[in-house]
Structure formats: C-alpha cells, structure tokens
C-alpha cells in the first residue's frame, strides 16, 4: 500500500529510511546500551533538514509539514526511538511554538538556529506537582523592569541538558489557575538557569531526560511568547502537533517489532516445525499487522488534517491513543514470539518493548487523550441534540 504518497513524500521517506538504516543504525545499539546522547547524529539530521521541517524557508527551514514529519519520525523510530523523541520535541513543540507565538524578532533570532540544527530545542512543562494537570504549575515569573525573573523547577525535560533553546511555562498570575500561565523562550546561559539530575529511565536511553532549575533566572521581556496569560493555550495547541510525532514513533517501533517477530519466527524450530507455522503465531502476526495498519491510517490522516488547517484535535488524540496502545500490544506479542531470548538485550525487541512504554505517558497520557476525545465528541452531540 502506498498511502497516496506523492513523489516528494516518497523521496523524503527514502532519505529518512536510508539515514536510519545506515548512519543511525551504526550507533543505535551502543548509544542505547550506554545511555549516550548522539550529538553527531543531530548535527547530521540538521544538515539534512530534519530539524526545520515545519519552519518556512525564510527562517532557514524546509516547511515540509506535519505529514512529512510523521513519515520521518516513523522511519527514525524503527531504528532508534530515542532519537525520534528529540526530533519530535524540537520540530513540533519548540520550533512550532516560536513560529506561531514568537514576535518577528524572536522568530528571526531563534528559528534559523533551530531549523539548521545548530542548537536543539526543548519544552519544559511538567513539574513535580503538575503532570497531566498543567494548571497546577508553580514555577513563577515575575516582571522586573525589562526582565522576568523565573523561580522553580521542571521535571522530565527531554533534551533539557543539550538544548540551546528551552520553552518554559511559568505562572505570571497566582490567582488565575488557567489564564495565569505564560510561555518563555529561555537560553541555558541566562543567569539563574541550571540543569538538575537526569532521570534513570526504563527505556529511551539514548535520549536525555533531565530536571531544569530556575533560581532567579533572568529572562528578557522580549522572550515572552505572545502575551501574559497565553501559556495554557500555547501548551495545548503545540501538543496537538507533538502528539502526532509521538504517535508516529509508535508506527516505527511497531513496524520494527513486527519485522523482528516475523524474522525470528521463520527461523526458530520447535517440535520439528518452524514456529511461524503454528496457528498461534500466525494469529499474533495478523493482529500485529492489522493494529499497525489501523494506527498508520489514523496517524497519517491526523497529520494531513493538521497540514490542511482543519481542526484536528480529536483526530490527533484518537491517533495518539490508538497507536500508542497498539504499539504496546505489538511489542508484547513480538516479545512473546521470541520466547526467552526476547527478554535479553541480545534481541532488539527487548529495547523496543521498553521504549514503547513511554509513549502512553508523555505528551498526554492515554487517559488524558480519552478526556480530550470524549469532550470533543460530546460537544459535537451537544450541538445537534435538543437540551
């Protein structure tokens, strides 16, 4: 099936696949084993244009859009989902937020650096008491003359210690829970910025996840995005794009898990037969492939919708909910087909299994996606049904 890809989309998909199969595959196993972030890989990705995929040409990007970003993340995730985390956050959160909410000056200052990959982007929303509930954010931003002074700390910031640009959400109004949040563009060399402890994660080991600490951190007023109080709106609208990225990660991990399962089952003999000839294996393969295909259609459709400018919140959340659940079922079955060796780091499925788990958590847990979907669906009915 070709998913109606045009010539350009096919070429882009091929570049992403070739890069994943050659350059990335050469370092993926070791960097995941050692938990090393591959600076050089991001330099190469930047040169190829993968770090400016939603940025217009005038800011040094290539503006291929969300669908092409999804295709790229899918291919990269087949080989190293950790790398895909940074690509996704960088493009669909950091770049996107600056492009859509930054002043002309902010866009000109930061986007060319980000789009070329000269610096990486991060997105600092989560705090110890504010995960799904971002209204509970406590990091404060107080205006003093030409600056805001930030105090507080952020947790689980992907690429936080490697980034040159971090979008930080902080409270400018303590009274108003929802409209009291604001978003800032913060550079790591602003006074008062420091990197705290790294998380010891179960998977995604070649991506870096850290705490960021702000102690009287001085941020110029020009680095406020949009205006005070727009933080919640910015955070939520960016996540619509980010969630397509995470759902695309599910496609790549799922494809790799299916590939591994079939390869393994064709070779393994028990009771005098290849295990792929057992009906129980075939049924697993059928289920895995079908779940993957359904996920792909949901994700591609959501990405195309977002590119076309249609409101896509519901479709994006459906894609994220379904694809990230499906991939966890797929890696489960693939590991089961592998038997004991699947539980060892000798086989790729062990890493895929661990990496897949995070997908149902970050950028909105599955439960949060259900809140979003049900809210949208019920709203549609409210509009047509009598009170």
């Amino acid at each position, binding site marked *: 099936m070709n998913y109606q890809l045009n010539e350009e989309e096919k070429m882009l998909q091929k*570049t992403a696949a070739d890069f994943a199969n050659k350059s990335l595959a050469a370092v993926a196993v070791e960097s995941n084993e050692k938990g090393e972030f591959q600076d050089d890989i991001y330099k190469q990705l930047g040169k*190829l*244009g993968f770090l400016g995929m939603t940025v217009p040409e005038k800011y040094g990007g*290539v503006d291929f859009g969300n669908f092409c970003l999804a295709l790229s993340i899918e291919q990269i995730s087949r080989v190293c989902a950790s790398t895909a985390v940074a690509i996704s956050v960088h493009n669909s959160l950091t770049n996107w937020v600056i492009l859509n909410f930054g002043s002309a000056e902010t866009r000109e200052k930061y986007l060319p650096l980000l789009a070329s990959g000269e610096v990486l982007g991060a997105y600092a929303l989560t705090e110890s008491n504010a995960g799904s509930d971002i209204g509970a954010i406590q990091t404060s931003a107080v205006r003093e003359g030409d600056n805001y002074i930030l105090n507080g700390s952020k947790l689980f910031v992907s690429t936080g210690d490697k980034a040159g640009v971090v979008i930080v959400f902080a409270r400018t109004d303590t009274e108003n829970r929802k409209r009291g949040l604001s978003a800032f563009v913060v550079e790591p060399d602003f006074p008062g910025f420091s990197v705290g402890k790294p998380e010891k994660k179960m998977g995604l080991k070649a991506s870096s996840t850290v705490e960021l600490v702000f102690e009287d951190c001085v941020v110029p007023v020009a680095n406020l995005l949009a205006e005070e109080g727009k933080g919640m709106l910015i955070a939520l609208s960016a996540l619509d794009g980010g969630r397509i990225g995470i759902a695309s990660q599910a496609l790549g991990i799922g494809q790799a898990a299916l590939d591994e399962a079939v390869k393994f089952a064709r070779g393994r003999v028990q009771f005098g037969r290849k295990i792929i000839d057992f009906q129980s294996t075939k049924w697993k393969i059928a289920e895995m492939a079908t779940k993957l295909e359904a996920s792909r259609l949901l994700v591609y459709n959501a990405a195309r919708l977002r590119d076309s400018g249609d409101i896509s919140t519901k479709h994006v959340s459906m894609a994220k909910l379904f694809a990230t659940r499906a991939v966890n079922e797929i890696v489960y079955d693939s590991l089961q087909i592998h038997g004991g060796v699947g539980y060892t780091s000798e086989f790729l499925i062990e890493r895929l299994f661990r990496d897949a788990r995070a997908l149902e958590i970050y950028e909105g847990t599955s439960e949060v996606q259900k809140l979003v979907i049900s809210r949208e669906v019920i709203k549609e009915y409210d509009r047509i049904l009598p009170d």
Partner: protein
Amino acid sequence: MKIIVLLKRVPDTEAKILINSEGSGINEEGVKFIINTYDEYAIEEGLKLKENVGGDSTVTVVCMGPEESTEIIRTALAMGADNAIHICDAALDNPTPDMTATLLAKAIKNNGFDIIFCGKQGIDYDMAQTQAFLAEKLDIPQVNIISEFAISDDNKKAFLVRSIEGADEKVEADLPVIISCNKGLNEPRYASLPGIMKAKRKEIKKLTLTDLDSSGVPAEKDSTIIKWLSLPKSGECKIIEGEDFGEKVVELARLLREEAKVL
C-alpha cells in the same frame, strides 16, 4: 566543466528475484527498484568534482529506462545534480549494451561533456559493457573499476587508482574520459530535504528514439536472452544421528548408494 553521470534503474539488492511463469523475465510484482548501487558512487564523485572545480560546472544525469525511472532521476537531482536527460521509449525492449551505448552517446554528444562517471556494472544483468561501448562510440579513453579519483589543476587530466587483485594500479587519463566507479570510492550523500525541494524545479529532458535519430543503432541484437531459468532448489541437508560411529558410517554409505545414488 560538463560532468555527466549515467544512471540505471535496477531491482533492489534486497529484493528476492523470481522468474515469471513464461520464463521471459523477472516477476516485477512487489519488487522495489532503486538507483544501481555503483551509480550512487558515480553521482557522488560527479558532485564532488563539481564542488571542487566550481565555476559554472554542471552535473547532468543521463538515464535510459522506463517511465518509472523518473523516481531515481529525481533522487539524483535531490542529491545535487543540476539537470537530467531521460531516454525513454516504449519501443526499447531490453536493449543490448551496444544499443544502449549508441543512444547514450547521441544524447551525451548533443549535451556536451568533459567527463563521464558511471557505475562499474549494473547490478541487474552484471554485464559491465555499456561503458566500454560508450567509450568507443565517443572515441574517448575509459578507466574502469576505480577506487580513487583526482583531477589536475588545469582540469585536463584525471588521476585514478584501480584496486586490482593484490595491488593498486595508478592510472592517468586525458579528459574527456569515462570512468566507472567501484565501492569504496566515496560515501554517497543522502538526498537532503532542501535538495528534495529544489529537485522539483530542475529540468528532466525527455528524449524518445525519434528525438535522438536512431540511425546507427544496431537493428538486430547481437545476443538475445532465450529463456530465464530458476536456480534448482538446493537439497535439504541430512544429519545422521546416533552414538555409534561405525553404525553412522554404514548408514552414510547406504544413503549414498540408495538415495543419492552416487556410489
């Protein structure tokens, strides 16, 4: 400098090749087609030469093949080639290297050329003849299977290394020259995203047999593939189990006589 790179569309190296039921060719169903692997080194070397020489140098890719070859031509353009010539005509049915070279020579002559890069062989038919015919038709030297390339400061001489069994051969050749490239010559670049954007706007000149005037193309094939045959299935390996060595030898002799019938 006018740099020409030859390009061929071939089945993916990873594709499993099955013969069609009539035995007249391969079954193309589900087979992915790619740029001939060795041609990728040719593209890279052409692009490097252009970057090195600078000025108004151009890299023109020349491809003869079916309509679908546009896909690989665009990829070469996205890698950085400036324009392309695509010789495409439904009347072309599995042309021999002689026929191919005659047509390529016409297109290349019309375009102008200072140096031609190609792969050392097509990974489909593995004949490695087209470049030799082409050198003859254009009356220029050919150096094949090269693993190193450099050019003189006045751009008139190529310095080449051919890796042969157990030794390296250093060769000098006057331009214009046709050079067939081997693995190891370079690391082909990826088609970058900005490259893909630009490729859209680059010209692919389509030429049919009538455009090229097919005089001089051999009317008859000098060789024809009569039939394609699948490889015989390799037999299953039989392992004789048992503890007693003597019994196993007796069993082996029996199998060789009665089943394999070689004794």
